[in-house]
C-alpha cells in the first residue's frame, strides 16, 4: 500500500501491520496533541488503543474497554485473527461499536468519541463508542418558550437530540438515518421521519441533496437551510427550524422530514407551511377557544409588525381623512412640532431600536440590561421630550416591534419589510403600502416546500386541515383522522416536489 496522502485518506484500506497503521494515522493527523495512543499487549498480541482526548469518558473506557481487554484469555492461540474474532463475537463492551476497514472511517469514528483498537496483524480496527465530551445540559429552549408545554429543548449533541425524540415517539415507524456530510468537518446529520407518512422519494431526495453539500464545515442549521429551500428571490424561507423536541415530533407525525445536525440545537423541518409560524405548543395545551383567540392575535400581530408604522406614516402624510376627526386633531397636534418628516422620524426610531436590540444581544447579559435602559429610557425619553420624535409615532413603532416578537420565526423578513413599508408609505402613501402588500402576498404564495405550497391549507384550500389554522379544534375532533401534509389540496409531496428536479 502507498502511504495515504494527508488529505486523501478516505477509502484507503488499513494495513495489517500495527506499526504501519500507527505511522499512517500519525501522518494523517499530523501527530495532533489530542490524539492518544495506548499500546497494550492482549493475550500476547501487540495492540494499540487510540482515542481523542476530551472526546471520551475516561471512567467508561477504563471500566468497559481497558479492564475487559486486559483480562482476555483465549489460551495459547496468539493469532491476531483469533483475538479480533473473540472481541467481535464474545465481547460486547459497549452498545455502540463498529469495525473500520479504512482510514476514513477510522478517523471519523475516533473524532466522534470512539476508542479504536488496532491489532497487529489484522487490517481491521474495532471501534467502541465511549463518548464523554462536555455537553450543555438539556434546557428550556430560548426562542420558543411556552407556559404549559414541556420545558426541554434540543442540545448541541445530535445523539442526545435523537433520544429526546425517541422518548416521545416510541414507534418502530420512526426512522433515524445518520450520515456525515461536509468533506472537511464530517458533521453528523440525522434525517428523521415516520416511514409510513413520508414518500420514500422525498427522503431519498433530501438525503441526496444533503450529501451533495460541498461546504467545508456545517456549524449551524443556517448552513444547510439554503440547500433545502426552493423559494426563489424571496424574503420568506421554505424551511422551518425548531429547538423543541415536542414540536419536532408533532411535525414528524404530520408527515414531514426532520434534519438534526450535530453541534446545533436547531433542527430543520421540511416541508414547511407559513401557517406554522403562528402555531406554538401552548396552543395545544390551552382550551381551544383561548388557543383560537391567541392564534388570531398572532395573525394580527404579524400584520401590525409589518404594516403599522408604514400605514401610520402613509395615513398621516397622505390620507389624514382616514382618521376620525378627534383622533386626527390629536395626531396633528403631536406632529406639529416635530422637526423631521414623518417618514424620517419613523426610520430613525426603528434604526435606534435595531441598534439597541443588536447591542443588547451581543453584549454580556448584565451590560445588555444597561444598554436597554440607555436605549429605552434615556434616548427614547430624551428624543420625545426634546421634540425630536412624536409620541404617536413612538407608540406605533413600539407596538410594531413588540408585535414582531409574537411571531419570532418571522422576525427577519418582518423587520426588513417594516422598513420598506415605512419608506414606500412615506413616498407614495397607501399606494406604496398596497403595492408592497401585493408583492409580498404573491411572493409568499409562490413559495413551495418539497412540492407543497407554503400557503396551504389556506390557498390552496383544504377544509380538513383548517381545523388547526385560525382556530384549533378540540382533541376529540382532531383525533378523528390525522391531517397528513401530503394529503393537502395542491400538494405534490413525493411526486414532483423533489429537490433534484427543481
Amino acid at each position, binding site marked *: 500500500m502507498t502511504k495515504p496522502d494527508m488529505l486523501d485518506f478516505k477509502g484507503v484500506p488499513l494495513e495489517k501491520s500495527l506499526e504501519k497503521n500507527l505511522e499512517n494515522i500519525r501522518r494523517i493527523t499530523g501527530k495532533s496533541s489530542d490524539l492518544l495512543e495506548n499500546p497494550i499487549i492482549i493475550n500476547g498480541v501487540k495492540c494499540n488503543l487510540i482515542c481523542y482526548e476530551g472526546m471520551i469518558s475516561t471512567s467508561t473506557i477504563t471500566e468497559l474497554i481497558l479492564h475487559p481487554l486486559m483480562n482476555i484469555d483465549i489460551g495459547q492461540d496468539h493469532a491476531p485473527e483469533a483475538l479480533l474474532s473473540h472481541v467481535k463475537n464474545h465481547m460486547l463492551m459497549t452498545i455502540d461499536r463498529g469495525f473500520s476497514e479504512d482510514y476514513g472511517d477510522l478517523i471519523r469514528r475516533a473524532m466522534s468519541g470512539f476508542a479504536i483498537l488496532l491489532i497487529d496483524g489484522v487490517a481491521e480496527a474495532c471501534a467502541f463508542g465511549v463518548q464523554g465530551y462536555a455537553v450543555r445540559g438539556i434546557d428550556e429552549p430560548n426562542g420558543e418558550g411556552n407556559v404549559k408545554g414541556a420545558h426541554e429543548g434540543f442540545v448541541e449533541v445530535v445523539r442526545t437530540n435523537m433520544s429526546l425524540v425517541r422518548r416521545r415517539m416510541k414507534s418502530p415507524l420512526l426512522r433515524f438515518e445518520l450520515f456525515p456530510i461536509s468533506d472537511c468537518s464530517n458533521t453528523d446529520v440525522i434525517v428523521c421521519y415516520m416511514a409510513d407518512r413520508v414518500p420514500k422519494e422525498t427522503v431519498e431526495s433530501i438525503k441526496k441533496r444533503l450529501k451533495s453539500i460541498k461546504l467545508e464545515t456545517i456549524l449551524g442549521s443556517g448552513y444547510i437551510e439554503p440547500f433545502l429551500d426552493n423559494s426563489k428571490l424571496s424574503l420568506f424561507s421554505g424551511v422551518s427550524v425548531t429547538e423543541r423536541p415536542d414540536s419536532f415530533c408533532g411535525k414528524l407525525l404530520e408527515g414531514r422530514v426532520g434534519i438534526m445536525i450535530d453541534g446545533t440545537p436547531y433542527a430543520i423541518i421540511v416541508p414547511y407551511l407559513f401557517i406554522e409560524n403562528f402555531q406554538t405548543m401552548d396552543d395545544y395545551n390551552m382550551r381551544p377557544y383561548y388557543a383560537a383567540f391567541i392564534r388570531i392575535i398572532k395573525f394580527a400581530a404579524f400584520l401590525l409588525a409589518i404594516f403599522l408604522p408604514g400605514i401610520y406614516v402613509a395615513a398621516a402624510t397622505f*390620507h389624514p381623512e*382616514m382618521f376620525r376627526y378627534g383622533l386626527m386633531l390629536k395626531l396633528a397636534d403631536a406632529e406639529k412640532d416635530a422637526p423631521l418628516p414623518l417618514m424620517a422620524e419613523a426610520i430613525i426610531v426603528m434604526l435606534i431600536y435595531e441598534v439597541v436590540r443588536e447591542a443588547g444581544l451581543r453584549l454580556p447579559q448584565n451590560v445588555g440590561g444597561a444598554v436597554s435602559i440607555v436605549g429605552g429610557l434615556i434616548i427614547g425619553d430624551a428624543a420625545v421630550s426634546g421634540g425630536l420624535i412624536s409620541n404617536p409615532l413612538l407608540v406605533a413603532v413600539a407596538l410594531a416591534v413588540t408585535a414582531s416578537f409574537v411571531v419570532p420565526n418571522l422576525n427577519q423578513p418582518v423587520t426588513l419589510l417594516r422598513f420598506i413599508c415605512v419608506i414606500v408609505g412615506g413616498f407614495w402613501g*397607501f*399606494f406604496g403600502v*398596497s403595492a408592497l402588500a401585493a*408583492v409580498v*402576498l404573491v411572493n409568499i404564495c409562490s413559495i413551495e416546500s418539497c412540492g407543497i405550497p407554503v400557503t396551504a391549507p*389556506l390557498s390552496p*384550500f383544504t377544509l380538513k386541515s383548517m381545523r388547526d389554522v385560525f382556530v384549533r379544534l378540540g382533541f376529540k375532533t382532531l383525533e378523528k383522522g390525522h391531517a397528513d401534509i401530503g394529503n393537502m389540496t395542491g400538494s405534490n409531496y413525493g411526486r414532483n416536489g423533489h429537490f433534484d428536479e427543481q
Partner: protein
Amino acid sequence: MNSNSFFGGRISGAQTVCLLLICSMFSLMTMPPDENIGFKVQLAAAAVSALIQAMIAIPLVMLLSPENGLKRGFWGIVCRILYCIFFLAISANVILESFGFLEKQFYRNAGKIGVCITLAVLCGYCAFLGIEGLARSSAVMLTVLFIITIALILPSVGKADMSVFMDRSFVYSGQLPKAVYKDLSRGGEIVAAGFLAGYSKENIRKPFYTFIAVKLLVTCGIIFAVGAIGGRFAYITDYPFMSLSAFADDVLFGRTDAVFMAILIISGIISAAFYLLIASELICGIFDVRDKNVLLSFPVSAVLCILLTFADGYAKYLCSGVPIILLFTVIPLIIILLNRRKKEASR
C-alpha cells in the same frame, strides 16, 4: 390555446375561477358610470352578457384545447402576435386605470412615469413568480376583497333606497344592447381564460361556467349595492363602487377610501401580472424560446407594457369593445378552421 406551457405550473379549477374573478373584479371596481344606462338595465345587461359569454365565448375558447390550439407556422405566429399585443395592452390598461384612479382620487400631482414604471416592474416580478403564486394570491385576495366589500356595504344598508330601480325615466329603447356591448367589451378575462387551459390540472369546462355564474352574481350584487346605496350620486362619480365608502359610517376610520384604494391596487397588480404572464408565454411561443432564456420574456413584456402605457390611446382601444369581441369569437373560429383545413390536407 397554448399547448405547451413554457413556465410550467399547474392550478386547480377553484384557483382558475379565483384568478379570473380577481381580473373581473378589477374591471368592475373601475367601471365608469353611464348616465344613459339605468341600474335595472345594467342588471339585465349583466345577465344577457353572461349568457352570451356562456353560450358563445366559452365554448369557442374551450374548443381551442391544448391539442388543437395555436400551432406553429405562419398563422399560428400571427395569432400569437395578436394575442400578445392584446395582453400587453390589457395589462398596460390595468396599470393606466390604476394610475388614473390614483390621480383622480388621491394624488393630483402623481407622476405618470413613476407610477406606471413602478407598477409594470412589480407586475413583471409577480408574473415571474409564476401562475401558481398568482392563482393562490388571487384566492386570498378575493377573500379579503369579499370581507372588505361586506364591511363597506353593511354600515350603509340603512341608507339603501330602491327608488332608482323603479325609476322609468332612465329606460329608453336601445339601452340594453348598448349595456350588453359595454359589459362584453370589459371581458378581457374571457380571452385570458382560453390561455388558462394550458395551466389547468383538470377539465376547464366546469371552472369556466362557475366563473361566469359567480361573475354574474358579483356584478349584480355590486350594481345593486351601488344603485341602492349610491343612488343617483353613482351616475356622477367616476368610481361608483368606491363611492360606497363615502356612505359608510365606520366606527374605526373617518373614511375608508384608502382601504378601497389598497384593494384596488392589489387586485390590479395581480390581474396585470396575470396578463403579463400570458404575454410573456406568447413571446416565448413567437420566438420559440426555450430553457432558461424564457426568463428574459418577463423583462421584455414589462418593458413593452411600459411603452404601451405611454401610448395610452392605443392601449385603451386595443383592449376594449371590438378587439375583445374579435379575440374571443372570430379569431378562435379562424384558428379552428385553419387547424381543420390542415388536418384535412394532411389526410
